[in-house]
């Protein structure tokens, strides 16, 4: 049986954040996961709090008004701000440098996603910041006909209807990397790592621009060298250029994964995929080892600390059966907030406040899971990310912020409480 200072379960934003923070502080970290997490599907922004329930301009201030059971309230606004600062440093000093993220928890950007409905977001890649719709400059939306996941005319029309007074026009380029018939966002991002392809794009777009227009592209401006691709287009076109997130695979999300994965590798942490945690060995209110199954063999992974970041119902971290019995799949932790028999579970409108939607693992202020009576269930297990009860990320626009803040806070709590980590490193 292996033994690590900390075993993190899950490779999404929460799990990777906790793992990198722990490993960089000197802890021996193992990440166990079923597969790659939701970073590949996310827009690469950190949406801390977009609606509460009205649109939020200043997330740091709005955090204070959330219910006491909300994960943000449990970790506190300072921890959210610290996590955001840490994330920005990780990006700026990471394997894609000088690619950077901009913004902070004090104010939201208002950015257009692919369908054009404005989206409040606190921290965004530098390549997206010029898309802020509070800036009234007109937008020229450039797409690629071969990229089926991005429709410039739809975005331009919806921007015109957004009520923000932003005028937009659209065009589609016929450029296709490697003469392929079917190219996804990643295929175009690879092409835009190549200066020659950037030059082709500039040559086709530069003559079509009207005075004062900024230029929107699908978020495919480079995967290995996004800063280079973005600056080359800005310089070549002589205009502000910004990326608009696409359908998956999301290139900016993949950049986040690559950055954190590489940071973890450099810090000596390891990731093992296709390892689904199916149970744990316990002793006196602590988990001593996690069990996984590979082929016909059960494997055990000993740990002083466990950070559980397996995601919610969509990722399989939580499961709901047809009899309305919910379970947390790795450790069998109690799931709080599931409406009982006879109680209303869902409301009719898609964006309504559904009673079921805050279900998850309830935790105390130190992210330890608690039972129905509010008593701490396990001493050395911390829960982070979408597994947590009390939030409604899709209504709040808070998913990435929650994962980042709770993953970071979990690592901080482990470092503060741990004796297995050298004191000097833990204090850094």
């Amino acid at each position: 049986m292996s033994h690590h200072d900390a075993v993190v379960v899950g490779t999404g934003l929460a799990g990777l954040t906790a793992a990198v923070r722990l490993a960089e502080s000197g802890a021996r970290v193992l990440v166990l996961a079923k597969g790659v997490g939701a970073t590949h599907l996310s827009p690469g922004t950190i949406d801390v709090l977009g609606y509460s329930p009205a649109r939020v301009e200043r997330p740091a201030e709005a955090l204070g008004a959330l219910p006491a059971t909300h994960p943000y309230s449990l970790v506190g606004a300072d921890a959210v701000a610290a996590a955001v600062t840490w994330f920005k440093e990780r990006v700026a000093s990471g394997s894609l440098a000088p690619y950077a993220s901009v913004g902070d928890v004090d104010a939201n950007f208002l950015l257009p996603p692919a369908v054009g409905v404005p989206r409040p977001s606190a921290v965004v890649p530098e390549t997206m910041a010029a898309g802020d719709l509070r800036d009234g400059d007109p937008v020229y939306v450039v797409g690629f006909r071969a990229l089926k996941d991005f429709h410039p005319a739809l975005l331009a029309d919806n921007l015109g209807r957004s009520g923000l007074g932003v005028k937009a026009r659209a065009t589609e380029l016929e450029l296709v990397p490697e003469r392929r018939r079917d190219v996804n966002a990643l295929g175009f991002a690879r092409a835009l790592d190549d200066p020659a392809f950037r030059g082709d794009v500039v040559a086709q777009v530069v003559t079509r621009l009207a005075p004062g227009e900024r230029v929107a592209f699908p978020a495919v401006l480079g995967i290995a060298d996004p800063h280079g691709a973005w600056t080359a287009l800005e310089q070549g076109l002589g205009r502000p250029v910004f990326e608009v997130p696409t359908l998956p695979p999301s290139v900016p999300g993949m950049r986040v994964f690559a950055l954190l994965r590489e940071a973890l590798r450099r810090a000596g942490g390891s990731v093992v995929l296709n390892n689904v945690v199916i149970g744990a060995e316990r002793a006196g209110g602590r988990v001593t080892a996690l069990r996984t199954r590979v082929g016909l063999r059960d494997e055990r992974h000993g740990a002083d600390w466990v950070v559980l970041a397996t995601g919610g119902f969509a990722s399989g971290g939580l499961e709901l059966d047809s009899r309305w019995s919910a379970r947390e799949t790795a450790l069998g932790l109690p799931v709080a907030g599931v409406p009982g028999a006879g109680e209303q579970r869902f409301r009719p409108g898609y964006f309504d406040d559904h009673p079921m939607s805050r279900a998850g693992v309830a935790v105390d202020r130190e992210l330890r899971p608690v039972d129905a009576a509010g008593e701490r269930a396990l001493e050395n297990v911390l829960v982070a990310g979408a597994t947590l009860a009390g939030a409604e990320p899709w209504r709040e626009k808070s998913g990435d912020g929650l994962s980042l803040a709770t993953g970071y806070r979990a690592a901080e709590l482990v470092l503060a409480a741990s004796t297995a980590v050298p004191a000097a490193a833990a204090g850094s």
Partner: protein
Amino acid sequence: MALHDGHDVLGTLLMRESLDHCVKCTICETFCPVSNVTPLFPGPKYVGPQAERFRVPDEPSPDASLDYCSGCGICTQVCPQGVHIAEINSRARAHLKATHGVPLRDRLLGRPTLAGRLGTPAAPLANWTLRNRLLRLAAEKAIGLHHRAPMPRFAGRTFQRWARGHTPPQAARRVAFFHGCGTNYYEPRLGEMTVALLEHNGVAVDVPKQDCCGLPLQSNGLFDDARGYVHRLAQRLAPFARADVDIVGTSTSCTLMLKREALEILGMEDDADLRAVSARVFDICEYLVGMHERGELKTDFEPVPETVVYHAPCQQQGHGIGKPALDLFALVPELRVVESDATCCGVAGTYGLKREKYDIAMKVGAGLFAQIADAAPDRAVCDSETCRWQIEHATGVRTVHPVELLHRASGL
């Protein structure tokens, strides 16, 4: 539902039905090393969970692009929903090949023991033939084996023969060594070093008679023939497993075959011998790390003042055991290890040897080859023999199994 969620869902029906868990997130497509370098392969999601819905038993397969899947298995590893994409594709390819016919080349590449038995007694001639450009061009024209494809050298002797003359010392522990065809015919020295390393650590090594694990046949879509090989090998190894003797192997793709792939892809979940073997088979580095965790590994390693690039091959990653070689290298003083973060060397067993796939394989491996060139290492290290041959072919850097470094660091 997924194989690894604790339920025993081995079996072809459930393996296939894992496709219902596909949410079209495209994560597999972003990691696929083949579709990322060639438009000839449209990607694992497309030919896997999507196209599988259009494949009907007893009807022709709708799309031959599936044959460009290299079978590296990375799609299954990264899938967040537990879909057995690579396994579904392997099975579909067998059906495709059964419909279209299997070329002579693939039948030959699928049987390394045949080549081994013929080539070993005539090693000088065989090695000359394999390195003669005119003959290789003729072979490319005749059967479609690419004339530049990396070919191993026959050692001219077998590891089995060495093992028969070797008397294991008395030891408290015992393992059975599944050495595979590569060690037997091409790299017998690796087998000898493995035995020496294990004996140095107080483990006696049995070398049972054995034949191919059937993986190359499986990769080439010849499932019935592959099952025969697996069944015979499992029969040979099962008595050890049933006597609580662990089975260790140096060929990481072949141990994966016994551990997982034959059960999942060939649908041999009812083979009692194979089940017994599967639960007891270990990749050699996995086994050595286990010994280290139990305090059974001698760690007074001598310094190895070298820089090496370590590449964990796809099939090694398929074990789901991380990179145990790196944990072992960390115990060796002065050894500087550069970890490759490339996914695949391209060769994928026999894929990169084929005329129509050689260039694709070299493009797939380009990232790895560049990392090795950048590091300018004393040698490269990789757990899989076909990958080692591909890396040496592409980079000119001598490439060894992790055991070779550990053998040296142990002062043997």
